[in-house]
């Protein structure tokens, strides 16, 4: 493509048969994509929907994982709080014993 462009710019060729044929092929390709043929339009729309569904599916999958992370984060906070509480419960009698021994 870039080679063609360069050659077009440097040596403009007269509108010959091969170029016309190439342009016609390009027009046919574009028509196939967007119409006025309704079948092509429907095909394009279907492709768009499929792409949208794929993107939506991927995003929902990611959302499931992100949601799971959020639940785990919450569970971690809960567990940390409980562990702190249990530590305090365990340490409290030890401290009391230590204080008692110190007073002796």
């Amino acid at each position: 493509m870039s080679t063609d462009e360069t050659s077009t710019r440097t040596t403009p060729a007269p509108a010959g048969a091969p170029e016309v044929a190439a342009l016609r092929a390009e027009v046919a390709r574009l028509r196939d994509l967007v119409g006025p043929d309704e079948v092509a339009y429907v095909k394009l729309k279907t492709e768009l929907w499929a792409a949208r569904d794929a993107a939506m599916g991927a995003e929902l999958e990611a959302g499931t994982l992100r949601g799971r992370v959020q639940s785990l984060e919450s569970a971690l906070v809960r567990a940390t709080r409980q562990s702190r509480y249990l530590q305090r419960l365990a340490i409290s009698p030890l401290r009391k014993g230590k204080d008692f021994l110190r007073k002796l």
Partner: protein
Amino acid sequence: MPLFSVVTPVYDPPEAVLRACLDSVRAQTCTDWEHCLVDDGSTQPYVRNVLREYAAADRRFRVVEREANGGIIAASNDALGMAAGEFVALLDHDDLLVPDALALVAEALAADPTIDYCYSDEDNLTAQGELITPFYKPDWSPERFRSQMYTCHFSVARRSIVEEVGRFHPGFEGSQDFDLILRVTERARRVHHIPKILYHWRMLPTSVAGNAAAKPYAYESGRRAVQAHCDRTGLAATVEHGRVNGIYRVRRHVPDPLPLVSVIIPTIGTSGRVWGVERCFVLECVRSLLELCTYDNLEIVVVADTPTPAWVIRALERVAGDRLKVVWFDRPFNFSEKMNLGAAHATGDYLLLLNDDIEVVSPDFLHTMVGIAAGEPDVGMVGAKLLFADGRLQHAGHVYNDGNPYHAMFRFHGDELGPSGLLLVQRECSGVTAACALVKASVFDEVGGFTPLLGNNFNDVDFSLKVRHKGHRIIWTPHAELYHFESMSREPKVLVPEHDFIKLRWWHQLNHDPYYNPNLAPSRDDWVEADLA
């Protein structure tokens, strides 16, 4: 101090479990109680012996022995027949009361003599003696109670009301307490919640706490109990089983003909990419309303800022036709003013406040919301379950905690059940987002709409609190689902003066959310318990 009659039908509990239950009653710091025990023809001989032993040692244990097993309802009614106290406390034969349970109830009753029914928080006791899964409950939430028997065991009711409603009714085996409490609360002047764990629910393989499938018949009884409640109270609804056992959906019947709903959508016609495809938000919002939503008596009021592109309006006209009203807004952006302007042009009995970056998920969402709002005169506003584009929760009702408003369970997955089924039940809440809320037009007028002083943030918090201040209930429903494509990468910009304003105006309400619980951690929205003392 009133006399409490603790009512317990007994049928073949393990001996140690029964003794623990009786000991927990005997250890009450409040001494004005009697324990009415009915042995429902237990097959294990130790049951009778243990009951006789306790009755001999303390005359406050009163025991009746049935000749044959008559079932839990007959035994419970016999126990109620023995009761002489002003209040009856329902307790299962395997539950444990904490020592000051009755004292705290007595204290609450002394503070407010109009209390007719009282319940507390709870946790579960495992076979290994561990206390797990605390359930920190909301204050009285009748809508949630219809969806879930959340007050559970150990609840205290005025005996005169229990007698008035005819004690336990046969036919509700397994959910007999749910049926009774529904009937009691229909007549109660005041229902009180003590935000403390006053009993431990033992997880035995034969109890629902230990095994949700232990009593499959209980769930159908529960559904029938709620249906009977709706029929008694004139609530036109059909009660269905929810996604999990023990959760019910009260599907309200919508009025016929359908009332006109004015959908108010503020917009500036922006576009953005959702699921990889560029869309004009307001256009897709209106398209989804008209193509997906099954409610057809709609008026669409689009409040458009003047820079809204003309092609957007033309496209809206093509999509919505005669149902569209475009109202131009030519002042600097102010969400509240835009909504008030839209409401002034609306002619419907109900206003659906809707952001333009919304897309319908449940086709019947508006039937659900209108049904709830129309079903009871004191419901002022109804909120919906909003999901981000990736299926996570954007909105499941507001939580006002530690002086700040939050979205409940924000960014959890949309399919989560939530703590104690929170995300599956229709419930009262302190506020809902105006991104999607149905409000009665009369209530909107009564509270004077949105305050223009909050042009960007917290206008829905203020609006919700005004609605509740006027005595209306706000209901959040998980059965109305919509997408809300609010930016997830960008943290919402909060203006300090607006934050100060809302805190000043609603300080008490933002620190005391009746549908949260003081035992839960401050500055959180996920029902994590506060630090244990």
